[in-house]
Each structure stands twice: as structure tokens, then as C-alpha cells.
């Protein structure tokens, strides 16, 4: 990987880490509420996947702050959203779990486990029909692969040879239930094997993820149909701020945290450059927080705006 690319990758990972730490702090201070799912430990995967797929459409889950950052959505507008402010990327209506920004080809932020997977299939169908240059990526957890609609999506995407990357973030847990309790095996790629080629990667190694996603992107560009990536990863925190993480032993947590994706990249960088990047990321997050604290709340009069599109879309349709 080129030096500049590596620096961008590293910078965005640290930005993600700092962002999540700030979100955690402000959740505890009561500035952020609802469910807050932190991506700490999984930043390498989130960032590398987005950067290797810079021009495609992305559909993802509620654990999406770092992916949104890596997509180029500003830390300010994401932090504002977490604070429920009018200036947030979803106008304060969506919150942490529902970041949407079509201008960055980022379509949520969906909190119905598995529910966004068929949406990505549909979008991939549109891209194929339009003979577009880019394809689609759908990101989901190991737990989501137990929903029926996941298999329906594998089947549909493969049958129609759609340009779609299925990216499974296998952190082995769905809230407090280990995948081994509810599934006869723990490698999720096995589930996709009958339908499409599969790739497996160490999700704690951002460079490896970058390479794997690049390979997958090349594959879908050729029109051969979808591909499945399983990235093995590990979250450092509880499922959300409401989960005390009691089901994982201290030993298990040690093994998990020893694989910190940021520490893995750090030695590849010049130490002064590394220190500067970290400082810059902290600065960017501090500014985002400062901005969010002062940003305006949405007006009460806007409560029912956007249930339907404004400006008479019904007329436009007829």
C-alpha cells in the first residue's frame, strides 16, 4: 500500500476511535441518548472497507458511525446527529442508528437486523439496469445471517448476477449470544458458498481488509455476479451502551484487545507523522463536539416534515 494511502487509512481509523470515545463520554454525560453501538475494535474493518469501495453505494447497520466517517461524511454532521441536532446528517430525526447521506452514497444506518440486505440487492439491480460503473456493498453482522431474508438475498443476487459485495462483520456475537450457541458452525462464509465465491479476511488487519475488498470490487465490476466477504473481528465494548458485556471473560477480552487494529498499523508509519495524525484527529473530534453542543435543535414545527417528500411528489408521480 502506498504511503499516502496508508496515512489516510490510519488517520480515518484514529478519527473513528476518537469519535467513538467522545460519543461514549457524551452519552454518559447525557448529551447523546437512545441506543449507542460503538465500533471500537472494528474501526480497521469499517474504514478499510469503505476506502477500498470509495465509489459504490453502501447499506449498513446501526453500528455505522465509523463507516459514515470513512465515507467522507463530516464528523461534525455525524456528532450533531448523535446529539439530536437540526444540523445532524439526518436532521436529528434518525440519531446514532440512522445516518443517511445519499450524496455520499450512504443509505443508513438500519436497525432491523437483516432488513437492509434486500434493499442493497434492489439497489444493485438498479445499478445493473443502469449499466453503472459502480456496484453496491451491504454490511451486516454474523447475527444477521440467521434471518431468512439473508438467504433470500444471497439467492436473488446470485440468480440475477448482481454487482453486490456482501460484507459480513463476524464479531461472533449478537448482543450477548455467541454465534456458536445458535449456529452449527462459526464461519459465516459457509452460508454463502453454495451461491457465490467467498473470501475470508482478518478484520483486525486493515491493510488485509483493504486488499480483500479491492479484489471483491474488481470481481463485481466484471459482471460475474455477487461475492461474499467474511471479516473476522472483535468489538471491544458491550453491544451498545446498555449492555454490560458480562458474557465475555476478562481473558476473552484480553485476546480481543490484543488485536487492536490501530496498534497494528502504527509501526508502519513514521512516528512523528503518526503523532501528528493522532493529534489532528483529536482536534477534528473536539471541534465536532464543540459544534454539536452549540448546534440548534430541530424546530417543533418541523415534526411531521419528511413523512412524505415535499413539493408535491404525488403530482410528480401521476
Amino acid at each position, binding site marked *: 500500500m502506498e504511503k499516502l494511502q496508508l496515512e489516510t487509512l490510519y488517520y480515518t481509523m484514529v478519527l473513528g476511535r476518537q469519535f467513538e470515545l467522545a460519543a461514549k463520554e457524551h452519552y454518559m454525560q447525557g448529551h447523546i441518548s437512545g441506543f449507542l453501538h460503538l465500533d471500537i475494535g472494528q474501526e480497521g474493518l469499517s474504514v478499510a472497507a469503505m476506502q477500498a469501495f470509495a465509489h459504490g453505494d453502501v447499506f449498513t447497520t446501526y453500528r455505522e458511525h465509523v463507516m459514515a466517517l470513512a465515507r467522507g461524511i463530516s464528523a461534525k454532521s455525524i456528532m450533531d446527529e448523535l446529539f439530536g441536532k437540526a444540523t445532524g446528517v*439526518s436532521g*436529528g430525526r434518525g*440519531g446514532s*442508528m440512522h445516518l443517511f447521506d445519499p450524496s455520499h452514497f450512504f443509505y443508513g444506518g438500519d436497525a432491523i*437486523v437483516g432488513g437492509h440486505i434486500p434493499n442493497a440487492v434492489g439497489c444493485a439491480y438498479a445499478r445493473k439496469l443502469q449499466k453503472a460503473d459502480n456496484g453496491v456493498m451491504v454490511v451486516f453482522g454474523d*447475527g444477521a445471517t*440467521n434471518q431468512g431474508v439473508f438467504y433470500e438475498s444471497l439467492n436473488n443476487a446470485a440468480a440475477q448476477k448482481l454487482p453486490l459485495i456482501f460484507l459480513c462483520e463476524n464479531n461472533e456475537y*449478537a448482543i450477548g449470544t455467541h454465534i456458536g450457541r445458535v449456529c452449527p458452525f462459526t464461519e459465516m462464509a459457509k452460508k454463502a458458498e453454495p451461491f457465490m465465491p467467498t473470501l475470508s479476511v482478518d478484520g483486525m488487519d486493515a491493510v488485509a481488509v483493504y486488499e480483500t475488498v479491492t479484489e471483491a470490487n474488481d470481481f463485481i465490476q466484471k459482471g460475474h455476479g455477487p461475492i461474499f466477504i467474511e471479516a473476522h473481528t472483535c468489538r471491544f465494548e458491550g453491544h451498545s451502551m446498555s449492555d454490560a458485556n458480562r458474557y465475555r471473560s476478562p481473558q476473552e477480552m484480553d485476546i480481543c484487545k490484543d488485536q487492536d487494529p490501530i496498534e497494528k498499523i502504527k509501526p508502519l508509519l513514521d512516528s512523528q507523522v503518526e503523532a501528528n495524525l493522532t493529534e489532528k484527529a483529536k482536534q477534528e473530534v473536539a471541534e465536532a463536539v464543540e459544534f454539536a453542543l452549540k448546534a440548534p435543535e430541530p424546530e*417543533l414545527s418541523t*415534526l411531521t416534515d419528511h413523512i412524505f417528500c415535499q413539493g408535491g411528489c404525488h403530482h410528480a408521480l401521476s
Partner: protein
Amino acid sequence: MLYREALNLAYHEAMTADESVVTLGEDVGFYGGSYRVTEKLYEQFGAHRVIDTPISEQSIVGNAVGMAIGGLRPVAEIMTANFALLAFDQIINHMAKLPYMSNGKVQLPIVVRFPQGVSKQLAAQHSESYEQMLAAVPGLIVLTASTPQAAYHGLKKAIELDDPVIFIEHELLYNKKGEVDTQARFDPFKAQIVKPGNNITLVSYLKMVDDVMTAVPEIEQQLGVSCEVIDLNSLNPIDTDTLKTSLSKTGRLVMVEEDHKTGGYGAQIVSWASEHCFYELDAPPLRIAGLDTPIPYNRTLELASIPTPDSIAQQIIQWGKQNGL
């Protein structure tokens, strides 16, 4: 005892008394339940009766139907009403219809329980209430519980019944404290008169009962009236006797609910009252409900989208003044 502990006690007693009672759902076993309702059941009754399922709501209810056909008495937990939508095919096409389609040869002693409603800033995909849809399905009994007492007795009764029951809880009630008298005679099909009164009948269920009770002193003071507060408990069937007796006395009906107003559950109560109590009524009924909007994340907007004690009091006071009180 806390509401969630009352549910847990009901589970415990039902599972001790009858080996065919099993429970299944996401995180119900080893983890102890996402709202701790099934805490320690896994340790007490084992993984074969307290079943951790994959995230597959359609299968959870679908499997419960098969378990019941096979002779078990399953209690299925769905994490929230929002995810129960994924199981609506099994709930409506299978669970609610098999007994009828089989000419009564198939009995389905199943409880499907879940919480619903607005908690705090969980946004649109985690805040809905779907009692109105389920109460509209022939073949389903729909019970709610607004107190630990109702939770304990309601769930126990639901498990004993040989028919499919939808048992609805509220996100914000799990830590509510209250007396549980296990020996009391409590009929979950009977509406409870939470507070007797003479001039206005306030009907609600689940968490809105608490909000109505908070609003009552202000209403009574401002209007110089006394309010009768009724907790429906059972949404289908409806205890119309209790409603009719109350309306004959007060002549005024206010329905308070958290779901969206259009097609909301309260429309059923008001329509029943206009059909059957028309001559008892001295004023047009008032419905207080959630707005017809997905629930927003921002706290100010969120609270503006559902009834609160304050908005309940204000709307009733204004309505009372316009209607001769």
C-alpha cells in the same frame, strides 16, 4: 416487586407447575433476556426449556406454532413489537388461523410476548406500538399489563389458556414497582377501575394509564370534576360491561393511547361507545393519541409525537370547557 420480576415469577411458577411450558427467543437464555424478564430461568430449567434462538423472528413464532402442535406450551419472546413485524405472517396466517381452519382439531396454547412503545430516543425503528393491528385479527387474544400485579396474573393466565395470546408489555414499565398479591383474584380479561369518579371516564392501557393518573389532579382541579380512570387490560376481547357502567354514570369518554391516531386502537373503543352508549353520552368523545408520524430521535420532537401527562391534561381541560364542564 418490579414489573419484570413479576413476569419472571409468573414464568417460574408456570414452568415449575407444567413441564410442557417452554420459552424461546433471542437472548432469553444464557444472557437472561434483554429486559431481564427471563433472568435465571436458563439456570433453573435448562437450555432445553429456555431456548436461545438465532435472530429469526419468523421462525421464533413459526416454531412456537409447531411446538404447540407437538404438545408443548411455548412462550415466545420477541425483543420488541418492531421486530414482531417480521413474524406477522406466522402470527396471523398460522397461529391465529390454524385452530379455525382445522375445525378446532388443532389447539395452539401459545403466548407471544413483547414490549412496545416509546422508550427514550430509540428512534423510528424501535418505538412503535402495534396493538391496533393485532387486536384486529380474529383468533388472537390480546392482553396488556400496566402494573406488576397485572403482569404476574396476566402472564400466568395467558400461559394457562389453550388459545393463542399476544401479551403486550411496555418498554418503560419493566422497572415499575408495585404490590403483587399472588393469591388475589385477578381476571386479566376484566378492565380495572384504577380510580373511581363521576364526571369523566378516562380509558387507557399500558404506560398511558400512569400518564393519565399523573394528569388527573390537574384536570380535576381545573374543571372541578372527578374522573374515573379505567385500565382496559384486555384489548381483545373488550370488557364492555365495565365501560358501559362507567359511561352510564359519567356521560363523558376520553380515550388515551400512545399509538398513532389514524387507525389507532382507541378508534375501536370510541366507535363501540358511539354505537352502544350514544344516549348515555353528554359530550362528543375525545381521543388523545400519538401523532401520525414515525417517532423521531430528537427528545423534544419525540415527546411532542406522543401524549404526555401535560398534553393529556391540557387537551382534556380544553375539551371539558368546550363541552359544558
